[in-house]
């Protein structure tokens, strides 16, 4: 008895598409469709040409070195290490970031911090940018707001791989306003 009630489920229909079956005589002649295609490209051509002639930019191209695209403030580019008020790193060498890193590109050596209130500080903090996948797990893992990925990408390219390994000095002494910008961007979204 229950079998017959189950059969009300909607049937799946398969749509058979045979382009030739539906082609009208005009379509089979091919010529009207050529004219249609040409009229589309010609309309675009004329519109863009008019933009050129009247001094506007008739394209969507960004002329890179002269024009630059505004990236999202949350863009994950080159890393930065945040400073404390006295200029020392906020990092406490907890190894959270290097543990979270899927590319295994962060190398940290810890040492005792002179201030007894803080346990450790990094002696070495190297990031191999040639291995980094720019996933942002390190900044998410960081418990001390010490590592961020900034919106800058133009410092990244280097001539050889060894120059792509950046150290504590480099990461700590980058423009600290980038940290504030990134923090604000993250706050703004939350």
């Amino acid at each position, binding site marked *: 008895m229950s079998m017959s009630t189950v059969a009300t489920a909607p049937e799946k229909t398969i749509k058979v598409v045979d382009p030739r079956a539906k082609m009208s005589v005009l379509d089979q002649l091919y010529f009207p469709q*050529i004219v249609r*295609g*040409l009229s*589309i*490209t010609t309309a675009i*051509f004329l519109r*863009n040409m008019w933009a050129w002639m009247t001094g506007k930019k*008739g*394209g969507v191209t960004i002329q890179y070195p002269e024009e630059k695209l505004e990236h999202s403030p949350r863009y994950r580019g080159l890393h930065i290490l945040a400073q404390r008020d006295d200029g020392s790193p906020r990092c406490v060498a907890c190894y959270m970031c290097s543990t979270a890193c899927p590319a295994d590109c962060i190398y940290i050596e810890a040492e005792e911090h002179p201030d007894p209130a803080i346990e450790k500080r990094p002696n070495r903090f190297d990031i191999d940018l040639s291995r980094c996948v720019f996933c942002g797990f390190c900044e998410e893992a960081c418990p001390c707001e010490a590592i961020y990925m900034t919106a800058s990408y133009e410092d990244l390219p280097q001539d050889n791989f060894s120059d792509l390994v950046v150290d504590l000095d480099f990461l700590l002494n980058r423009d600290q306003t980038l940290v504030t910008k990134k923090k604000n961007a993250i706050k703004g979204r939350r």
Partner: protein
Amino acid sequence: MFDPVILIADILKVSIIFFILLNAGGLLTWVERKQAAVIQHRIGANRALLLLSTKVERFGALNGPLNLILPILAPPINFLLRPLGKLGLFHALADGGKMLFKEDFMPTGAHPFLFQLAPFLAVVPAFMVACVIPFGPDIEVMGRTIPLQIASLDMGILFFFAFGGIAVYSAAIGGWASGNKFALLGSIRASAQMISYEVAYGLAIVGTMMVFGTVRLDEMVVQQGELLFGFLPAWGVVMQPLGFLLFYTALLAEGKRVPFDLPEGESEIVAGYFTEYSGMKFGTFFMAEFIEVFIGAAMISVLFFGGWQVPYLYETGFVFPWGGTFNMPTFMVVVTQVGAMFAKILFFCWLNVQIRWTLLRFRFDQLIRLGWKFMLPAALANIFITGLVMVLMDS
């Protein structure tokens, strides 16, 4: 009889048309790049720049005078060159330079003579057919009549077909002599395609020959200056609309341009018959293709769009069918007519590039089916209908 004025006129005509064709080869690459960019919402090539230096050091004794002149001479010239660079015009020059200095490579398995012959077979016929194209009306210079056409041959359009047909040898020989499978496939495709379309190509024009009763291109253009029903210019496209469509399609196929670029088919067979060509040999094929585009545009305008004729413009000026005249000096009339010819050529070059960036490549069976099963019967029907109409109108 030897006449120095006619000799000088001939030399001038040949050099001017040669100059125009060579430049058309370069400029059309620019047109193609820029037009593609504009259609695709891009900007296109705009980086190549050629500037004069204000200080030179490597000309020995000339250094002193050059360094005096250049600081004055260079800034205004550079001021003119910069916008040209922005337009991307120097990319054709940069391309030419690149091709000239590239390695002229020949594969081990290639047939050395035929391999070197093929680019010439591509480019020479392209130049040769230009000599039957009338670029303007006859002009009177120092009491002599000089036609604005290099050679006013009795065979006219047959010359165009004869030498245009040689281009197929270039593709076939070039591909075969390369000793490369892809090149061979390309050359087989080229031969099959060009010979299939040669038939429709020749038959499509028969209707036009019947209507005008001549194969001389200059006479055809003169006849297209007449009016039908008192107001419609008797252009070939009005008399032979189907002939025009068939001829234009066959012309695209003969020129091996998209949508008929199967011999090159870069997504399937690398670069087809010129896979193994590099440097200026490849450049020669490339130039031949663009010259063919230009010549094809000229042929279309001559056969179907009145050549140098401007509607209602006669030797004394405009005479409009709805009354009213606008007198012009003969010189201005000739200039207008030659200008109209080049405007028509430019329009058809534009259309060719527009088609190239709009349509998709045919499949090979579609191409052959279109050629043999549609275009050939249509061309024959066109001849039949043209003949029938002519007989009916005579009786």
